[in-house]
């Protein structure tokens, strides 16, 4: 529970690449995030943001490069490997079941059981309440109401709570505020800040620079599958980030060998 990010990154990617046929989605990208730090991942459409997080989440592994988790190299071959390490992803479309209630969703696929393999509703409800309380998710009327009856911000909060209740160390949020109104965005941004201050590493993908400057400690800019820079929010401006997103200098031009650019 430190307020200051530790120096050693919890996750470090070294020179990861991913191609889909002829398309270079990622080219030798370096990326690092520390515990207690909110790292924003920005870039235009097609810059490789989603490919990067899907690689970390084990949905499709990188073609080359190293993943270093807590100081040692790991292989993430599937979503279960990622979950085992403590990496949880909250996807854009939330992945909640509308017909199930908050507790049922938070425990979906990892239900607590009592004797005779019965669902242990009491334990699940108690722990779900505790998690929501530590995250200060306080606008829910009841943890037993179906997710269908929640607002967008409340759903996003439940999805985040679902991700952090499994001793996760790194939470990746894909466009968490994209579909939300002003008040609901506020609610989710506050939640993201709390995750960081509770010592988790957070990666947030967003197109909204205003939101990013509010919650993030650092920004990694991707452009055309390459990492353009790793900026400290306190030392940069929105203009500079926009400039990097749209016209940041590439070290490799897709299809052109690096030596040609250098010469």
């Amino acid at each position, binding site marked *: 529970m430190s307020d200051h990010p530790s120096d050693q990154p919890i996750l470090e990617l070294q020179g990861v690449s991913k191609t889909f046929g002829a398309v270079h989605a990622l080219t030798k990208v370096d990326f690092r995030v520390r515990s207690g730090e909110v790292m924003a991942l920005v870039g235009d459409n097609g810059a490789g943001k989603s490919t990067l997080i899907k690689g970390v989440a084990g949905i499709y592994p990188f073609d080359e490069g190293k993943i270093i988790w807590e100081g040692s190299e790991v292989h993430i071959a599937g*979503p*279960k490997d990622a*979950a085992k390490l403590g990496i949880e992803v909250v*996807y854009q*479309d*939330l*992945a*909640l*079941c*509308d*017909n*199930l209630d908050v507790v*049922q969703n938070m425990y*979906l*696929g*990892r*239900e607590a*059981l009592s004797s005779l*393999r*019965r*669902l242990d509703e*009491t*334990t699940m*409800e*108690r722990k779900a*309440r505790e998690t*929501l*309380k530590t995250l*200060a998710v*306080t*606008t*829910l*009327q*009841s*943890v037993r109401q*179906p997710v*269908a*009856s929640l*607002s967008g*911000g*409340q759903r996003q909060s439940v999805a985040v709570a679902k991700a952090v209740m499994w001793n996760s160390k790194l939470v990746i949020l894909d466009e968490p505020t994209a579909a939300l*109104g002003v*008040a*609901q965005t*506020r*609610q989710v941004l*506050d939640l993201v*800040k709390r995750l960081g201050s509770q010592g988790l590493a957070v990666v947030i993908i967003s197109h909204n620079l205003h939101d990013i400057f*509010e919650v993030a400690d650092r920004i990694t800019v991707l452009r055309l599958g390459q990492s353009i820079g790793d900026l400290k929010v306190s030392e940069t401006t929105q203009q500079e980030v926009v400039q990097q997103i749209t016209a940041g200098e590439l070290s490799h031009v897709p299809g052109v060998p690096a030596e040609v650019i250098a010469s």
Partner: protein
Amino acid sequence: MSTHVPIVEDPEAPSGAIGAPSVENETLSDYVRGRIVGLRSGELGNIPIMVGIILIAIYFQSRNSNFLTAGNFVNLIVQMAPIAVIGMGIVFVLLLGEIDLSVGFVSGVGGAICAVLLLPGGTSVPTSVAIIVALGAGLGIGLVQGTLFAKVGIPSFVVTLAGLLAWNGVVLLIVGSRGTIVIQDSFVNGIANNSLSHIAAWVVVEGSVLLYAAIQYAAVRSRRKAGLPNVPTSLILIRIGVFAILGAVVVIVCNSSRGLPYVGVLMIALMLFWTFITDRTTFGRHVYAVGGSAEAARRAGIRVDLVRIMVFGISGMMAALGGIILASRLSSVDTNAGGGSILLYSIAAAVIGGTSLFGGRGTIRSAILGAIVIASIDNGLGLLNVSAGTKFIVTGLVLLAAVTVDSLSRRGRESAGRA
């Protein structure tokens, strides 16, 4: 820069709701108020069906005073049983948002296999083996159809429509040139035609109520220990009281005629068993999850294909059991077994009972409630001596009404943000 002012974002939420989720126990009046809010936004629960059953009873009793006699009540239990049993399997399929059109003839296959194996001078297997083989056949058929749907990706409608035709053919082949197979096995015939002794009926029914009370008590105690809010105790007591009285009425009425049929007990036992599976096991939870959002279920690590295959297996097995009950009622199986109205009656029972066709919502007991409605209409119109044509038209209209209620309440939930 952070402002931790709680944001009031839901204008409809009562102001007291903002803050930590409350851990106070609801009172009965809170509960009633909550139910009324739910009703207005389309959470109809069992209300339409209860009203429907009462209206049906009043109508038929006013037209023919034989409808509400003890003898006819026992008939009703026997008539509704196959519909309810097959309907319970259908509930599982509907919870996935799928359909199984093959259950009619799968029930025919189940009944026919059981009857053939028990033919005197035939295989001479024990009764239990005949029943297990018939149930296994239903299970196998369901698993195959489920696999074709889940793994190959053929829509369930098409797979089971093909099944509807193919299993009809299998029934014809099994029964063959005999035309009708008469069942002489006393156990099989006894399922639908024999009854519990008066005392046994009391013990079974009120014993079940006591068991229900004990389970409720254990749940309340465990929640209180964990500091979680409980439903009002008075509500639980009212429910237990209602079940005890209803059970007593059923036993008294049955005992004044032929007694409580074994098949009635079987039906209730199956309902309790499958309700336990849907509400208290991970499998049941995953069925609801897949029906709600298959993608979310997959991302939560649920093996969606396996859940789907097992659900169709359950549907097939329950269909075969329904077929055995049907065969028991008629003490025979003919080439027409599993045809006629049984398929549509079973699906209609689940839907009329309140299980949604859109997936993710429904209960096992809806099959029983719906079967009461269907069997009452069938039985009542029979007493009024109307033609089969009229029967089908009326049942069709009732089904249409039930689906309309389902669709409208879904729209109500959507506009109230509860869809």
